[in-house]
């Protein structure tokens, strides 16, 4: 399979130079995600992807996607949560199609084998006492001892002891053997809402930034989701494929007429979290997600166990973040929590901001030992990707079962 750089080349303008920053976190077992019965031996694994592109030394786009794996005895469910995507207005090349980049990246992630995530999982807990007795270099290992350990590894290479070490190392991590699973469910979940900025703080102040209305943004994402769902390389077009759209507070007939008519036949109103009479237990808990915040409030109010999905969507409409014409200031908080690691302290009233944004990638980038960051566009698949302009708040989801 082609690597990401190769794939992106095909959708970037011909003979132009771009820098690609793709960061992937290690896979980690997490506690939450959904209400579940721990006795059932379920395991939830999370991994984050972050992609950003620079042109002329300036970052112009970034997207943040979290992937969750729910592993039970009988099946594995993979959920892509598109957390944030943003531009900053510093792209001075009209031939770059952001929608195409987003579509390509999501497709790429969907095509990555789940093995990439499930071979080496940081477990919820470890017996550190055990680890510290073994010849591993960890934060407590003295520098002098660290060199002795490394030295022994080189002298042992190819010997039996060295093989044992590799086995020990494997025991530090959890591995999910995918061979025994017949079914892998893939879900994509995303939330569209126009905001002046998501990942580039204050970038909304840049007059050159292209801000879409709620309606336009929804249509933009619908188009991407529709194209991905129709990609036969990813989803076999069988009866299990299903894409859903829900606009809290909006009539289903209206949604169908206004948005779904022009999309493929597998689109429906509703959600992938269950039927309207179901409990809220099927709604995943995502990081920094408006409906997750609402879910948490319901937990505080002891309504989480009582409400049905239908009531949830009805009440969600009343949330400030879902009301029309309200600019919500939640972005600052996300910035503090984790975006600071990507891009720090930009001034968006001048171009230096975008240049510094790129420079701020350095530490994080290098920590991951990523090497190839310069690519040249080939524009093979760069068909027209137009955007239509209006305001709404909505959720698009679709899923597919593999036989």
């Amino acid at each position: 399979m082609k690597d990401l750089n190769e794939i992106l080349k095909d959708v970037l303008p011909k003979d132009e130079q771009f820098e690609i920053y793709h960061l992937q976190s290690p896979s980690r077992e997490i506690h939450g995600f959904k209400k579940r019965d721990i006795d059932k031996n379920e395991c939830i694994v999370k991994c984050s992807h972050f992609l950003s592109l620079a042109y002329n030394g300036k970052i112009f786009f970034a997207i943040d996607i979290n992937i969750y794996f729910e592993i039970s005895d009988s099946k594995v469910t993979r959920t892509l949560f598109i957390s944030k995507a943003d531009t900053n207005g510093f792209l001075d090349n009209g031939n770059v199609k952001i929608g195409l980049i987003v579509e390509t990246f999501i497709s790429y992630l969907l095509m990555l084998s789940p093995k990439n995530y499930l071979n080496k999982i940081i477990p919820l807990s470890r017996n550190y006492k055990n680890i510290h007795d073994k010849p591993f270099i960890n934060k407590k290992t003295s520098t002098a001892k660290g060199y002795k350990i490394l030295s022994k590894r080189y002298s042992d290479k190819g010997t039996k002891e060295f093989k044992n070490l590799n086995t020990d190392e494997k025991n530090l991590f959890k591995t999910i053997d995918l061979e025994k699973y017949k079914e892998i469910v893939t879900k994509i979940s995303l939330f569209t809402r126009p905001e002046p900025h998501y990942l580039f703080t204050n970038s909304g102040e840049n007059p050159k930034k292209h801000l879409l209305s709620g309606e336009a943004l929804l249509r933009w994402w619908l188009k991407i989701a529709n194209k991905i769902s129709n990609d036969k390389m990813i989803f076999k077009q069988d009866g299990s494929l299903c894409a859903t759209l829900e606009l809290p507070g909006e009539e289903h007939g209206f949604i169908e007429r206004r948005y779904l008519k022009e999309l493929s036949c597998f689109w429906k109103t509703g959600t992938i979290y269950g039927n309207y009479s179901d409990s809220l237990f099927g709604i995943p808990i995502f990081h920094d997600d408006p409906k997750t915040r609402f879910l948490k409030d319901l937990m505080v109010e002891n309504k989480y166990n009582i409400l049905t999905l239908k009531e949830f969507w009805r009440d969600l409409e009343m949330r400030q973040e879902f009301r029309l014409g309200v600019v919500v200031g939640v972005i600052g908080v996300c910035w503090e929590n984790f975006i600071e690691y990507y891009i720090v302290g930009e001034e968006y009233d001048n171009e230096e901001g975008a240049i510094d944004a790129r420079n701020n990638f350095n530490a994080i980038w290098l920590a991951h030992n990523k090497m190839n960051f310069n690519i040249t566009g080939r524009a093979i698949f760069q068909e027209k990707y137009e955007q239509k302009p209006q305001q709404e708040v909505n959720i698009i989801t679709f899923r597919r079962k593999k036989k």
Partner: protein
Amino acid sequence: MAKEMSEKDILSEENLKISKALRDLSDIEEKLEKIDEQVNKYRISITEPVFEERYNIIANIPNFWKTVLQTHPEFSDFIPVSDFKFLDLLKNLKVVMLSSTDFSITFQFDELKESNFPAQTLTKTFKLTKDITKLKYTSKLTDEQLEDMQEFGFLTSEPIEITWPSDYDSINPNKISMKTDKDFKQNYRAGMKTVFAWFNWTGLKHGKEFPNGDGFANLFMEDIYPHCLKHYIVAKRDIEDEVGESDSEVEEDEEELEGFNIDAINEDEQNKEPSQKKMKI
């Protein structure tokens, strides 16, 4: 037998060469650690006579130590405010390095009649040990902490007899008793937190004696004593509010907000969010 080495042999030769280099670096690191210690000893040896001189000069400056301790940015984190009344009586203070890890601190207190607090000079000695079998209570320590103590060592000290001021009679562990005091536990705990309890600190009863007693000792050894002249001058600054000072009055938050908040509504919204996030279910 073939003279030429196989690819595997070459690889293994190369690995052995790297292996040796890495082992050599381990030795270098040990040498550098010894050098650090040697430099430290050298510093102590040439600093000591100057500190001695300084000690005698400071004796002539009223309120020198009072000024230093009152304005030191971290000192007050270790003890209750009520202790300052007695620390203000400190006529002089001396730290003597006994080795590169062990040291003693000598406190020379003036008397305070109204508190039945006599003039007293006390020397408390601190020694580093790695022997965790000396510990008397370990239940409050995690395995990880114990491991660290074993590897990097921990400070210990003999208890020192000190006369407590009468102000503290109700929390003085020598004067209260479980039998007669109804708030014994609470008072005992309050007493444990005063600087007088620190003189009794051993380093062997984690969670049952003056808290962070080693941190307090190290503060004297590493910062207050070697840098007292600097701290004194900082306290005596005529202009306290220069722009760009780290102890400036301008708060970081305010600075940051300036560039960020366009209007008041935004600010409200921003402030709402963190509290929501912190809410525990």
